[in-house]
């Protein structure tokens, strides 16, 4: 129990530091262009509006005071109001969150469903021609930036074949292309990682023991090698989260999927800084959560206390 308490405290401290760092970063970024009031007010604001903002945020006061107020605001989750429609920035972000979570879950699920078996199989099959061809294919696929793949998929399935819709989030059929596109961001890298892990495990002595006891190859791969190979993969999946976020941002924009990524791009283009600020904050927290969770998961899954060498 005491161990958990200590870990919990440490995690909270880490999160706090991370958020503080992010907030500080945002604080200084705002001042990069000179007058933060203009950034927050937006390009179309009248001079008296700018002055009002300056007073409200306290930009006419000393830097320390400004910093304190800014940090206080952000940490109490007051991100200001959207410059586009006046709704509180945080509300806008939270409204868009479910759509992103849906897409993220679908994409991640799809990726794991495809990448894990593929990586396992490739790692165990070194010489066959099919494996070589698959590897070459993967290499090519990695050369396609995610959004290019998405566009090509749209071109093929939505435009030419008209099987699937090209825009929006209108029901299961509209989930397919976006989910597949995001998955294409993550899958190639993950497949290679799992493949490398599996290839490292297959020559192990305990695999030889299993063979010596008559275990069929298939079972060896999935029940003896896989747990070892995938143990290392848990950490890797967590590391892919950053890629996932990037993929979500771009793909949501392509498909006009009403999630956080789309909101981020819209807000960036519209110079709606309060919303951009809120989204950045949320994403940082999300990344931290994911990192922590994967770390915890890895520790729980590995019967040994340390991390297994690849």
């Amino acid at each position, binding site marked *: 129990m005491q161990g958990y308490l200590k870990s919990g405290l440490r995690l909270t401290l880490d999160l706090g*530091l991370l958020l503080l760092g992010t907030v500080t970063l945002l604080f200084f970024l705002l001042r990069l262009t000179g007058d933060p009031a203009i950034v927050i007010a937006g390009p179309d604001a009248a001079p008296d509006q700018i002055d009002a903002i300056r007073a409200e945020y306290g930009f006419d006061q000393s830097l320390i005071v400004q910093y304190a107020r800014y940090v206080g605001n952000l940490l109490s989750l007051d991100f200001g109001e959207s410059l586009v429609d006046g709704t509180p920035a945080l509300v806008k972000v939270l409204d868009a969150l479910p759509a992103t979570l849906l897409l993220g879950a679908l994409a991640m699920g799809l990726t794991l469903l495809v990448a894990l078996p593929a990586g396992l199989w490739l790692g165990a099959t070194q010489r066959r021609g099919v494996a070589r061809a698959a590897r070459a294919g993967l*290499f090519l696929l990695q050369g*396609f930036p995610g*959004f*290019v793949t998405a566009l*090509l998929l749209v071109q093929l399935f939505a*435009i030419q074949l008209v099987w699937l819709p090209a825009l929006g989030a209108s029901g299961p059929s509209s989930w397919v292309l976006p989910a597949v596109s995001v998955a294409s961001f993550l899958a190639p890298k993950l497949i290679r990682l799992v493949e490398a892990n599996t290839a490292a495990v297959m020559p192990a002595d305990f695999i030889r023991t299993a063979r010596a006891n008559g275990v069929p190859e298939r079972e060896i791969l999935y029940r003896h090698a896989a747990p070892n190979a995938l143990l290392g993969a848990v950490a890797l999946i967590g590391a892919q989260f950053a890629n996932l976020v990037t993929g979500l*941002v771009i793909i949501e924009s392509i498909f006009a999927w009403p999630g956080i990524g789309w909101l981020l*791009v819209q807000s*960036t283009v519209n110079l709606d800084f309060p919303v951009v600020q809120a989204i950045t904050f949320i994403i940082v927290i999300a990344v931290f959560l994911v990192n922590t969770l994967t770390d915890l998961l890895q520790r729980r899954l590995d019967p040994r206390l340390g991390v297994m060498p690849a």
Partner: protein
Amino acid sequence: MSAARDPWMRLGLGLIATLALLALAGPLIGFDPDFIRLRARLLPPLSPGYPFGTDHLGRDIAVRLLIGLRWSMATAGLATLIAFLIGTGFGLVAASGRWPVAGLVRQVTALAQALPVFVLAAAIIAIVGNGYWAVVTTLGLVTWPVFARVVAAEAASLFSREYVLAAGMMQMSRTRLLVWHVMPGLVPSLAVLGAFHFADMLIAESALSFLGIGAPLGASTWGAMLSESRAYLLTAPWTLLVPAGAVVTVVIAFNLVGDALRRRFA
């Protein structure tokens, strides 16, 4: 296999050299990409005078492709250079371990790694506005942890090896040790990382300009071309396929080189 004889390496380098030549030769060809000829809208590739066809405003796609090439190579190149310089610097400091700064640097690096590159880049450009320098510095400033991580790890191990040797043999100043012994040892990994990073920067930049972030309005970047092609996917698919092909080609070229270097040095 020696790097020079690896056929994939040759292919990759060959492609890159061709692209670099094209990029440099651009202005010499002297076409005006914004020469809008509405009568020549949406001509397919291999139409007379337009090897890659024209876009929705009648602009020669081949010329726009060339301009985009210059932009892409220039942004990816400089961004990689900035990330390389900052990252290597930070990495060396973190690896040296002696100075109290090293610990702080390690923390900063860890923090920077937690933030998704793309989100940060978008946020920054939202604040500072568009433009070549905005994009280049943002991408460089946001991605340096990649280099820092690798340099820190490698330099640390090199330091402990070389330093022990050198300290035992002669009174060598740390700077000399750094320059003459540690840095050369870093070259292989940095080369591999540089190649892959260039490809990543290229993809990131084209993604940003695809979304309308970073490049000045109306600039002929590949990302912008891809974005514009979306309205004409049914009637003029080449407006998508040609720039897409260009992006993929460059990325694959750098991936080939990176892979070949990795095989050579592993």
